[in-house]
């Protein structure tokens, strides 16, 4: 086999699979419910009888909270990235397809979005409006779309110059047929690769905002939110921040590694002849 998957990428894939399984089924590993407090068992260290990963300041089981947090982080990251990817890709394709003022408007919007300090905008929006989970999802989704738009616009513009597009146009094909049947299959890999680059950034954005107290709100939880709760006890209860932090770090790293590998796989110019 020529396209052997490197060992590091295999590890990354294994970790991502484990993470997803943990997010889906991790709650069953613990007899407790994630909001269940037990003031008698506050701040128990990992390994305490009944609490494998210890408890937090209100005596809640860290293991089950991590599982729920992982689930929320996964949902936010995936939904947020998909919103950005779909929106950005469509706008990019539209700009390249329509040219003229449509393109000028979209390109201007790309430039504006790229110049916005997104964390500050998020702070502002979340502070101004009622902080709801939907709003938070939308906000996460609306970051990063400009990269897809820019990439797809370039890819479609160059694909449009290909002889086969001219030839198919001359055959009398409808724009739908040209874009869906010929251009999209040849540019979609660009968006796929960007998706894997973007996903860890979204994960980090979610955890950063939640850490600042602007993202996921209690009683719901996410990995970033768990870390922010452990912030004040870094020295006395290290497990409150170390476990979620390590998961975020490994997850972002794994997805990035897989993305890099995917980019090399999908780039035809790098293919061995």
């Amino acid at each position: 086999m020529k396209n052997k998957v490197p060992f590091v990428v295999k590890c990354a894939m294994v970790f991502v699979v484990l993470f997803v399984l943990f997010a889906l089924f991790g709650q069953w590993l613990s007899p407790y419910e994630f909001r269940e407090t037990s003031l008698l068992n506050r701040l128990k260290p990992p390994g305490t009888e009944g609490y494998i990963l210890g408890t937090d300041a209100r005596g809640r089981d860290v293991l089950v909270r991590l599982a729920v947090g992982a689930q929320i982080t996964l949902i936010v990251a995936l939904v947020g990235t998909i919103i950005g990817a779909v929106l950005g890709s469509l706008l990019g394709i539209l700009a390249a397809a329509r040219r003229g003022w449509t393109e000028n408007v979209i390109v201007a919007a790309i430039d504006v979005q790229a110049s916005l300090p997104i964390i500050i905008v998020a702070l502002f929006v979340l502070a101004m409006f009622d902080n709801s989970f939907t709003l938070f999802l939308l906000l996460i989704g609306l970051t990063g779309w400009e990269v897809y738009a820019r990439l797809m616009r370039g890819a479609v513009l160059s694909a449009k110059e290909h002889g086969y597009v001219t030839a198919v146009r001359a055959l009398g094909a409808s724009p739908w047929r040209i874009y869906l049947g010929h251009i999209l299959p040849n540019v979609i890999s660009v968006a796929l690769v960007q998706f894997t680059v973007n996903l860890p950034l979204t994960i980090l954005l979610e955890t950063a905002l939640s850490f600042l107290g602007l993202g996921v709100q209690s009683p719901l939880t996410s990995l970033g939110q768990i870390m922010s709760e452990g912030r004040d006890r870094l020295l006395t209860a290290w497990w409150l921040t170390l476990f979620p932090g390590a998961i975020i770090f490994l997850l972002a790293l794994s997805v990035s590694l897989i993305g890099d590998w995917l980019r090399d796989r999908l780039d035809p110019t790098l293919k061995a002849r």
Partner: protein
Amino acid sequence: MTVLTINGLSVALPSGGDRALAVEGVSLSVAKGETLCLVGESGSGKSVIAQAVMGMLPPQLPITAGSIAFDGAPLPAQRSDAFLRLRSVRMAMIFQDASASLDPLRRVGDQLEEIAEVHGIDRAARKRKVAEILQAVRLPDPAKLARAYPHQLSGGQAQRVVIAAALLLDPELLIADEPTTALDVTTQAEILALIDDLRRERGTAVLFITHDFGVVSDIADRVVVLRQGEIVETGAAKTLLADPQHPYTRTLLAAATARGAPRDTERSDVVMAAQNIHLTYGLGGLFNRREVEAVKDVSLTLHRGRTTAVVGESGSGKSSLARCLLRLEEVTSGTITFEGRDITHLHGAEMQALRKRIQVVLQDPFGALNPRRTIGSAIAEGPIIHGASKAEARAKAEELLDLVGLTPQAFDRHPHEFSGGQRQRICIARALALDPDVLIADESVSALDVSIQAQILDLFRELQARLGFTMLFITHDLRVAAAIADDLLVMQNGRAVEQGDAAEIFANPQQPYTQALLAAAPGKDLPEVSAA
């Protein structure tokens, strides 16, 4: 006096190539003041020989046998100081893409001076030498050009600068690897004349690599014909061109001199016509818009069953004209008619129905097919768009594959499995799958090797005789035009300079530009050769 002697040179190809040796047992020599032309098609190994002499072979291509001697002494070991000195001072090489040989961030004069500086020539002498050499390569206003950046030069000027750089240190051997292939004919003629004059003045030995027998006849003293890494024929240019012995040489020569049998097709009814069409493009981005007039006031008529060739140099507007006729570009003014009906602003379903009747074959056979689709589905797509069932379209595609000389079994294969010539056949099949009345061929043979070119031109002619379509054939190559055209349209800077019966124009061009173009075409002294 012999400058370069190559004896029994063999260079290996990496395993898995189409043959074991890139070049096999090649012997040749170049004498002082002589031009030796190394002729062959792509993959013949001609550039490998040049790289071997210059010590530039990639590590995958080791020399396995033979020897190379320079000025009577064998070449010193590669990478030794002696070899580097020899290569940089006594040999020089120029390439096809001149602008790629120049540093885009440095002024032309500085780049030339750097060469002199590296070889320890003092400042005053450097300046003088560079001024001299720029004068010698006949650049207009050399002092000003020395201050220019490479992107400000035209293709011809860039090649002159590269030649100046090559000859700055007065080398004894100049290796020129297809130096005029990317240039327009008139520029090509000037560069060929320049290389020839410099050779005569300075007594430089020239090893000239080309695929074009026209160029050979203009410049060569002696000729070596290569095929698949082996020499098939060698001899003095005059005798070899007049009386080629090997059938392969005859094929190449025939391709270079094809005139096309005059056909006595009457000017029958008009299929398609354009009256006074203009096309203006807007260029640039948000802040720097400008307009380019690509086509200016061009009129032409296409008569049923005849072939009209549009010739012109790059930027003459010939491809833009084709895009207007294909209605891929909206003309700025003027009218286009098809069978007497005004189609200039036709759109929607009517336009879609018309597309079926005007088809195109493009230049680049590699870009013209969607890499993710099988060639069968590419050919069948046209009929499907116009309402054929899958089975009908497949039957049609298989019939066409057979018609263009491929097997119907090719249906399920992907474009990358085919050679350039085969892909062009597939593109022709795709265009003909709709039984068009008009076929527009936009530089359809320009990217192909000469012998393949001849085959594709034959195919066009044969299919036209059988199917009776009308052809508009766009080309920069006058020989291709001469081989295929009944009528001719000469374009320059977007305007139609001369038009009429092709044979008449070739015999007796009226306009100065047409005359210049014909005079510049390489190989006008070649005797006509029929393929063996």
